[in-house]
């Protein structure tokens, strides 16, 4: 990831740290994350609840709450989102980069027809367009995400979960952004609908050349659709690499646990043997000494609690933060 041209990357996070102020003291949610998404590239961000992945998504469009302090640089299309003026930020939202939020059911306005909801960002960003032109664009978008143009007259409750997720994707594409961030786009969906949505996202990246950042706790989904995968634990990146390699040959013990959590159907070793990881992620206000994963790690040795392991390249484009990786 070294030497990335800042202009060519649609998203470039440089040493990003996010700290929330809370009544119980500072809460470091993200600690020094570097991440790049290039045009036409699909990058996956994996990790469990509380690892900081949704906080990180918020910083991409400066949507973090006022109680959060963001350090480092968040460059979207080369602009530092955290320091640009409001006017520039508004221009960037939707038209430069857009987010498909988690929970399509709750993100749509229940009393507004979906056509009007998709049209809203278009009207804001392209006020010169006639009503007719906006209407045509809404119909195109619906068809692009696999819905009938006549669906624009539907209300959200008349759509299934998969259809609502398609509407969310149509909205995200409304102003032709170059970067789309999808936060758990398939989590609440059935397997078949999940496959449909993943196919749709793949097609859109191929046809439109956008950069896509997908957040999920399901490594198998990310392996299926992404070029690269980044794994986060307790606010830090612990491993990244080519998606397939990270899934089939995980190196960090945490990635191993994530990868093993979803069994390979047909594998006799997984019958009556679900793989899990004992314990819960640490409280970010009270991180354990040394490696944050050590208390849950099956490979932990006393040295692990001495210092936080740095991300070290163990192969080409394959950084891992674990002192036990590479030991034979």
């Amino acid at each position, binding site marked *: 990831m070294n030497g990335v041209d800042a202009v060519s990357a649609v998203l470039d996070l440089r040493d990003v740290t996010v700290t929330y102020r809370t009544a119980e003291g500072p809460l470091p949610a993200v600690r020094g994350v570097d991440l790049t998404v290039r045009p036409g590239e699909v990058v996956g961000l994996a990790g*469990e*609840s509380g690892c900081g992945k949704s906080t990180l998504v918020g910083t991409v469009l400066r949507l973090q709450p006022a109680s959060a302090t963001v350090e480092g640089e968040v460059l979207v299309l080369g602009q530092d989102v955290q320091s640009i003026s409001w006017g520039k930020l508004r221009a960037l939202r939707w038209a430069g980069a857009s987010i498909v939020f988690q929970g399509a059911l709750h993100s749509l306005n229940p009393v507004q027809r979906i056509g009007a909801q998709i049209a809203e960002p278009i009207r804001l960003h392209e006020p010169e367009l006639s009503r007719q032109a906006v209407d045509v664009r809404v119909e195109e978008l619906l068809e692009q995400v696999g819905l009938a143009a006549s669906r624009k007259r539907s209300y959200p409750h008349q759509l*299934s*979960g*998969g259809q609502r997720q398609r509407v969310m994707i149509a909205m995200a594409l409304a102003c032709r952004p170059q970067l789309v961030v999808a936060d758990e786009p398939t989590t609440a969906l*059935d*397997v*078949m*609908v*999940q*496959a*449909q949505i993943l*196919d749709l996202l793949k097609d859109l990246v191929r046809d439109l050349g956008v950069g896509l950042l997908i957040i999920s*706790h*399901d*490594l*198998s*989904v990310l*392996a*299926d659709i992404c070029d690269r995968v980044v794994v986060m634990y307790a606010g830090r990146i612990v491993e990244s690499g080519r998606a397939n390699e990270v*899934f089939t040959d995980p190196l960090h013990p945490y990635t191993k*646990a*994530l990868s*093993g*959590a*979803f*069994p*390979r*159907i*047909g*594998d006799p070793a*997984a*019958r*009556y*043997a*679900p*793989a*899990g*990881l*004992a314990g*819960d992620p640490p409280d970010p206000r009270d991180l354990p000494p040394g490696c944050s994963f050590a208390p849950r790690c099956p490979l932990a040795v006393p040295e692990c609690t001495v210092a936080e392991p740095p991300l070290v390249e163990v192969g080409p484009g394959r950084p891992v933060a674990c002192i036990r990786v590479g030991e034979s």
Partner: protein
Amino acid sequence: MSAQPAVDAGATPFLEARDLSVEFVTRSGDVARALDGVHVSVQRGEILAVVGESGSGKTTLARTLIGLQRPSAGEVLLEGAPLSYSQKGLRGLRSRVQMVLQDAAGSLNPRQTVYESVAEGIRLHRRVARDPENRSEAELVAAALAEAGLRPPERLFLRYPHELSGGQKQRVLIAGALALRPELILADEPVSSLDASIRGEILALLLKLRSDLGMGVVVVTHDLGLAWNIADRIAVMYLGRVVECGTTEEVLSRPRHPYTQALLSVVPEIDFLEPVVLHGEIPDPSRIPAGCRFHPRCPQLASGAAATAGVADDCVGTPLPVLPAGGDHRVACHLDAVRTT
């Protein structure tokens, strides 16, 4: 980990659904058949997975099995005796069969402590008076929490749901069910809202309860990996019917119904099947297609394979028989019928 226990397939099933139908009348007056002739059975200590997409009727089946929903036709039998829907009958059923609902966060009362949540069932079913070891209510609550893997239990007594992690909430729900010493647990998507790392722990807990306490489990899920992890048998549901059933190995390693094949093929890590992404979603249960109810989405019919085998007319016109519960690997499919004979 615990291997599959010897389940006597010939014995009277512990809980059985016999030709179960559930109909709802929609606001427009249409009749929606959420369940349309379902046979399933579960033996003591057996783990059955009911799999299918949203709208397949799997949650309605679970609700009917525990008496929350009365069938329009057919019956539910507990050890061979038809269920009584009187208050007494249902209380008797629920002291032996407990349901763990989907969405642990939404199922716990946010203003009730963990202790109160678990103690509620104990009081309702007068478990303290009936406890063979004369334990107090607090001891029973502590034992249930410990069995659900929440140790030390006393530390959680006064916690509220918002202070717990997702995995802990799910365990509290399971503890509430366990406190009643049920013989069967009905679990609706027990891990779908949990993180990957916690999922394995909850599934391991269900297996441990089976091996330690002989508890049976009916798990309703769309997650085929979960079924591969813990289930002895699988029933695949589509639009209110079981379309394929058999042992987990049979159904998931050698799926015969085109719907099961498609469901399996889209699991990201499956590589022995070409991905078949079905178009659309399960149709409206008030308009069940004629013939095979899967035919409008069936890839075998669309590709012409059914026509080549000479069954295409049956697919669109001839209804399929209802599959019996238990026993062999069975499939409700016209194409499979000609291929296997």
